[in-house]
């Protein structure tokens, strides 16, 4: 039986091309089986093995299969013999003799073909699912994707696969993403890519197709309370609260529009930006009830700045441009870690020192992490020597936390430093909302797009001592009393 297949294999490999094809196909097949079994058993977990089993081996297998008929064809050309003559020459008469279910050779060919089809479909299924795995995207091109992989793992979308947003559904999406991936492989291999990878990514799948699978505009209603804690740089790192009641409604009711009005059912906002960077706006148009558009133009930009190719219809990513790959602002990163307790609030000057320990960037991550450690340890040793005994564990936890923060956000090999990528959500460090909502975006009468603070949020505290400062009774002697009254009334009147 074994001999029968072996003879067949020898028989079909008529010359060196055929032999090479046979060797490739057979050895790829055998290696795949050998590697896939331990992976199925959970013994092998490395993502790089997948690169071999699901990309390289099926590729070699197919190459081998193609070489076989090529070998036949070459042999035919050189000797001028027909297929029948070839068969008679390579195989014994007995094997070629016709029987009820075809000749023996024919049956071998059928069986092997079925085996090939099964193997190829199994392999390609495995290949596709392997490439759909976030781990593949995040680690296959390690140096390039590592920053995105790290921020992704720490993000609200950490349980959503990369391909769900980046590839989308349908054959068209798949093909375009694979073509794009092929180019990326070339650019990584030959070091053609830019560092950091420039944003915005223009070929991203339309957000309305991807994001709205889970978050659809009809369900953005009401408001959302957002509490921000900032810590001062004094010894006790005094907490200051900013509480915003974000008006996030899509605004189907008149006068109740909120921030998601921009993507509401009947609304459309179009814009163009300088160099298609989506940072400095050239003009914005909003669709009116009668179907016409009202245009606002950036009056500070002359004709020469009008370099754009892309007219965008606003969707999720125009504001939520970092919904997943969130790079933090160092100040905010420290504030959040203190608020969550990952960094102990009771350590003296913890805000000031933690921030300064991570603010400097170095060519090597390891050096930066070492600097974070020495900075923190030295500060407490020199200024609060007794703390080493009583708060040693807290200091150590703070150091580790800060190192993790740094590790996630700063990537010297990709030239990513603090603030390399803008975040358009809100208006914390980058312009965000104020890209359009500013004094310079004016309609033909010179009226600017509204940009007053309470347009998008009620303010219930603003760097205040308590989280709901402005809902408390007004103290007349307080210099802020006028603001206090104004914001309290603004909030109360919003919910009549």
């Amino acid at each position, binding site marked *: 039986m074994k001999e029968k297949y072996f003879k067949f294999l020898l028989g079909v490999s008529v010359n060196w091309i055929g032999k090479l094809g046979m060797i490739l196909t057979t050895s790829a097949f055998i290696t795949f089986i050998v590697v896939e079994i331990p992976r199925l058993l959970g013994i092998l977990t490395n993502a790089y093995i997948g690169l071999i089993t699901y990309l390289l081996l099926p590729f070699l297998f197919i190459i081998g299969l193609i070489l076989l008929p090529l070998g036949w064809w070459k042999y035919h050309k050189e000797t001028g013999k027909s297929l029948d003559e070839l068969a008679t020459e390579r195989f014994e008469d007995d094997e070629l003799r016709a029987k009820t279910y075809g000749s023996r050779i024919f049956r071998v060919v059928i069986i092997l073909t079925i085996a090939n089809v099964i193997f190829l479909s199994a392999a390609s299924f495995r290949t596709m699912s392997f490439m759909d795995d976030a781990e593949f995207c995040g680690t296959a091109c390690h140096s390039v994707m590592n920053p995105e992989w790290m921020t992704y793992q720490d993000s609200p979308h950490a349980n959503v696969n990369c391909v769900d947003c980046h590839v989308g559904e349908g054959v068209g999406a798949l093909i375009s993403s694979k073509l794009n991936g092929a180019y990326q492989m070339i650019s990584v291999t030959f070091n053609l890519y830019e560092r950091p990878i420039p944003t915005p990514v223009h070929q991203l799948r339309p957000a309305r197709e991807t994001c709205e699978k889970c978050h659809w505009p009809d369900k953005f209603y009401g408001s959302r309370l957002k509490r921000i804690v900032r810590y001062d740089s004094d010894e006790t790192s005094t907490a200051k609260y900013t509480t915003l009641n974000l008006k996030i409604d899509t605004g189907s009711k008149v006068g109740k529009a909120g921030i998601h009005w921009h993507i509401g059912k009947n609304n459309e906002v179009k814009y163009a930006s300088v160099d298609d960077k989506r940072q400095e706006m050239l003009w914005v148009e909003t669709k009116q009830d009668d179907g016409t558009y009202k245009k606002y133009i950036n009056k500070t930009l002359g004709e020469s700045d009008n370099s754009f190719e892309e007219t965008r219809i606003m969707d999720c990513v125009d504001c939520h441009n970092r919904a997943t790959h969130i790079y933090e602002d160092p100040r905010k990163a420290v504030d959040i870690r203190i608020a969550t307790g990952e960094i102990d609030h009771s350590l003296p000057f913890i805000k000031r020192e933690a921030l300064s320990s991570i603010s400097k960037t170095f060519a090597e991550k390891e050096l930066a992490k070492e600097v974070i450690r020495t900075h923190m340890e030295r500060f407490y040793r020199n200024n609060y020597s007794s703390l080493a005994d009583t708060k040693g564990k807290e200091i150590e936890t703070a150091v580790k936390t800060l190192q993790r923060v740094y590790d996630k956000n700063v990537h010297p090999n990709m030239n990513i430093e603090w603030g390399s990528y803008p975040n358009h959500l809100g208006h914390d460090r980058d312009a965000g909302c104020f890209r359009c909502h500013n*004094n310079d975006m004016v309609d033909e009468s010179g009226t600017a797009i509204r940009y*007053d*603070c*309470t347009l998008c949020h009620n*303010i219930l505290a*603003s*760097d205040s001592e308590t989280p709901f400062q402005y809902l408390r009774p007004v103290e*007349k*002697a307080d*210099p*802020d*009393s*006028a*603001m*206090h*009254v*104004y*914001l309290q*009334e603004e909030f109360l009147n919003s919910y009549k």
Partner: protein
Amino acid sequence: MKRTRSLIFLVLFFGIISYLPAQKVDSKVAGKCITCHKEESPGIYKQWHSSNHGQHNVTCIDCHGAKSSDADAFMHEGAYIATLVTPKDCGNCHPKEAKEVGESYHANAGMILESNDAYLAHVGGGSPVAIVGCESCHGSKVIIDENSPNKLAKISWPNSGIGRINPDGSKGACVSCHTRHSFSKAQARQPEACSKCHLGPDHPQKEIYEESKHGNAYYTNKEKNNLASDSWVVGVDYAEAPTCATCHMSATKKQKVTHDVGNRLKWSLRPPISKTKEDFAKKRKNMKDVCLACHGDRFAEGHFYQFDALVNLYDEKFAKPATQIMDLIKKKNLLENKAAFSNDIEWVYWELWHHEGRRARHGAAMMGPDYAWWHGIYDVIHNFYFEFIPEAKHLNDKDVNDLIAKVMSDPMHNWLSKDTKDLKDNINSGDHQKIYKQLFNLK
């Protein structure tokens, strides 16, 4: 009876209106300003918040509120406001200060277009330097531009010069000394408040003060000078050292604080030949009153005696003869080029009085010996004998040469043709000094 009643009425009337705020302001409007500007311009917010204004609920709109009819008023988030806050605006709450400023020499600092300084900056330099150089200190006319978002033309805003000519007709800018938006008393009382402008080669008041014992004592004891105190009477609330404000403006036991900075000055030392001010005896008395907080009468008198003599020395020995010669040259049209400052000798004469002569006089006024002599009269001498006179002689005009000969034959000048040993002997014997005796008793 009728008179008593009307008197009571008047007292009540003024009593009541003085307690009313100058402008009725909707606190909701003020609250909206603070809300956004706390985020948008946190520096302004923080300065204001800790200022006396902030602490007494004087808010943005109290100063920046405007009437729709004001030339610089613009609609901003539902209220008419103006960027510019003029002495007239400040005067709503601080009428005495605004009145004094309006009458002071400072308030007229913006009317410089006719001066030689402004002429030179415009012809020699050009309008950009006239704006950022001259007008930054002097102030200029605020130009309204209807197309500008805040109605102020960029060419005249920023404009915080002390003699700013405002669209509401008032003159001056309180912020040139009372830096916005903290308007700190302590800051305005420090010498640095003045030295944004009062420094440099033509009027080095800051440098002279730093050289003087007054400055020395101030920088040593700054903390003890009670700079932030509401009451700041020299000799009562502080005694370590005077600042510019102490002598020129602030309260003494007898005088109230004044924003009319010339009110204690006998001399105007600005022009080529020094002039005494109107009512100078009273003004000198005002200054002496300040001195007496820390000095004895004889000390103060002695200082003025020495100071006046130096002013007279400069005037009589150098300023008057040089001016006479210059006037004659101009009268006879002897200069090669027509425009002012297009001939070397004009620059020489200019620096003689505008730079060197002022340095000497200011040095003497504020007890800065180095400025009186090395940066002052020393430079005047060198310039007068070895640049000005030779330049004038170069013109080869008989009348000019005769005038020069007459000047040089004066006992104050004829040392140039004498023997050094004789001169030294005369100095040692005191005879030489007698030449200058009259300078101590002029005016």
